[in-house]
């Protein structure tokens, strides 16, 4: 429950970062992007997508991820070195999909968040037969 609440707050902070910085009594600080690789770039509905960290979270914790803004899709534990991997099936809706990953940690007594957006594209798994 605590992890979920923390995750929700991290997602909120990442999505509304510039606004959050201006709110009263908040202790959330934005950090540089969290680098990672996502593959494949083009995938059929239901196909597996894998995201692998290039840059570790500063502290071993949970990585929270979402497809599109506004909803938490899942979380994954980082390794002892802070590295993480997320695997998930591509959504059924074709088109461009934004993947967001966020990791939370504390820095100088502040709660901090690193996040990244990586886009991939879901394409229908058939040959085109349009009029040309």
């Amino acid at each position, binding site marked *: 429950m605590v992890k979920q609440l923390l995750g929700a707050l991290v997602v909120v902070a990442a999505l509304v970062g510039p606004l959050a910085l201006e709110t009263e009594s*908040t202790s959330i600080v934005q950090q540089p992007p969290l680098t990672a690789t996502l593959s494949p770039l083009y995938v059929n509905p239901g196909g597996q997508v894998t995201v692998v960290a290039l840059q570790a979270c500063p502290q071993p914790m949970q990585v929270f991820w979402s497809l599109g803004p506004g909803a938490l899709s899942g979380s994954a534990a980082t390794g002892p070195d802070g590295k993480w991997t997320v695997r998930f099936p591509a959504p059924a809706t*074709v*088109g461009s999909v934004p993947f967001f990953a966020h990791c939370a940690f504390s820095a100088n007594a502040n709660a901090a968040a690193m996040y990244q957006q990586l886009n991939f594209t879901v*394409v229908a798994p*058939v040959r*085109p037969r*349009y*009029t040309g």
Partner: protein
Amino acid sequence: MRGVLLLLVVAALGAGGLALREDDHEVAWSGSWVATAKVGEVAVYPSRGAAEPTSHLKSPTTSGAALVFLVDGRKVRGEWLPVHLPVRPNGSTGWIRAADVRLVPNDYRLTVDLGERTLAFERRGEVEWSTPIGVGKRAMPTPRGRYYVKELLMPSDADDEELYGPFALGLSGYTDSPGAVDFRGGDGALAIHGTNDPSSIGRRVSHGCIRVPNDVISFLASTLPMGTPVDIT
């Protein structure tokens, strides 16, 4: 504590345009609404509140993509939605139950001017750019009307890529021109696609589809949500 509450309120406001409460669909939007099926079969009715559906549309569709509709109008309200349908004849509309779909707002629109042979890209009501296009031959004209993007395909072999370029955005409309209606064993569905023949751009060369430069279709494929309106005039 007040900060946390404020954050949650800000988050709700930020996501407010992107999410609808299940019990209240009365939301105005300056763009359009896309309805994506969240059930395996969507019943289509002839009018709001009709007792019997006139047809059922499956999701995923035969292409493997989730079934999407363009909502007719900018305001969505109550348990019923008027939608454009991806079926013959072109311009077909019907009513579906709001509970069968997930609603998402969309800022994008494409407009195609057949006379000028241009395609314009709009976001939030403003034209951001336009590009020359290839359109249907005189004997196989691109049909005018309001359509929407219903699927995204990526050609997987050299033969398909020669004709369609790197991507094809399938539209909700069809051609009925003889010679085009069963082109390549298909059903006459229209699309916006690329081409490996750049000389065809700006000319009347196709069987009804709209050809754009490959860099343009790549941009559109990675940008446009399914359900984006396409107005061909």
